[in-house]
């Protein structure tokens, strides 16, 4: 009975230590467990269709500042952050 209790206690402690270890691990070490994408797929130029919606939304977030700095005409979506009315614009009425 005692042996059984101490086994359960030890397992619980080991489990807690495992969780605590994962939580305090630096980000890099956690990422290392994630398999990197196969380089060969990209270098060969795979015809595999990409997730276009996901790619587009990432582009919208990331490229706004870059495009502005290049002086290109940004799209309406990219400029939404700058579309706030002035403090004393006239409101439209419905």
């Amino acid at each position, binding site marked *: 009975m005692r042996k059984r209790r101490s086994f359960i206690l030890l397992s619980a402690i080991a489990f807690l230590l495992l969780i605590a270890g994962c939580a305090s691990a630096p980000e890099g070490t956690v990422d290392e467990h994630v398999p990197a994408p196969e380089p060969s797929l990209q270098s060969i130029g795979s015809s595999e269709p990409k997730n276009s919606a996901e790619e587009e939304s990432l582009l*919208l977030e990331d490229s706004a500042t870059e495009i502005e700095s290049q002086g290109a005409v940004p799209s309406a*979506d990219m400029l*939404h952050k700058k579309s706030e009315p*002035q403090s004393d614009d006239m409101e439209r009425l419905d």
Partner: protein
Amino acid sequence: MTIVFNKIHRLKQQPGWTWDHFLTEMDKCSVRGVDEKTLYSHYREPHKKPNSQLETLINQLHGDCFPAPFPEELNRLMRLYNHLFNCKKHIDKEKDIQDLEFFLQQQCEREVEWLRVSRLNWLLGNIAFDRIPLYRNNGMREPLDWCKQSAINHYQKSVSAIEQHNGKYPQAMVGASHLYKARHNILACYLNVVPQAKRGKDASIIHYLNVSNYIANSKQALEAEPFQWTIARNGLRFSSLLENDSDVKYFISALANISRRFLNLAYQPLNHGALNEGEDFHWAIENVLTSDYLASIEMKMKKNNRGKRS
């Protein structure tokens, strides 16, 4: 967007609408109701933000007493667009707005009923109107001019359609307040395209103000509904841009009659900035709305109130 303050006043203005009657009508709409103090404070204070319960109740009551003349499905579509436009989390909403715009344009071409034509154009005007700050803030002159012109054209078509409807159905005329709103939106297009610092000297704003008779129309609208502080505030704004001291005096008195708080130039009514923070009011504040002048209005109002009590 008609604010709850105006709706409470409009409801209260109806014959037989004492506070008791008002509260009874509200009780009919909801089990929880609203207490008299809350209702009265929203009637008196233009800066008070209503909670969602009060807003829903007042909207329901107002809708029952003053049914909108436009088809309900188009009013709901307009609400849907407003929610879409104001949604900050929807990152590529412009594409959805463009799709909606295309649908509306197609509908507009096929539509024959005047009120539907009017409302579809109104919504198309709103879509173009809402793009104005975007292009203005980014200094994109060409699309800005295009948006301004598109919004104005749609609002003008909306006005014409209402006038056609009123001519054809004199027994079911659309009220003057809707025509006023559409014309207000046209003026807002002229104003909002210009950065604040340049508005006083912008020839197109001044020209439109003169040809549209905006100041006279605002005074007329205030005579019918003296509680409309947004109309009085805009009247004051344009009187200031036109540097007309007698009109400035007219509109500041109208504001003071709605609430004496407006005599404090730092006062912020709901969803609007203080007068002393707006560039558009600069001339009026410098030349007419001196502290002595504002104090004299307050004194006069106090005297009048004492006179009424005795």
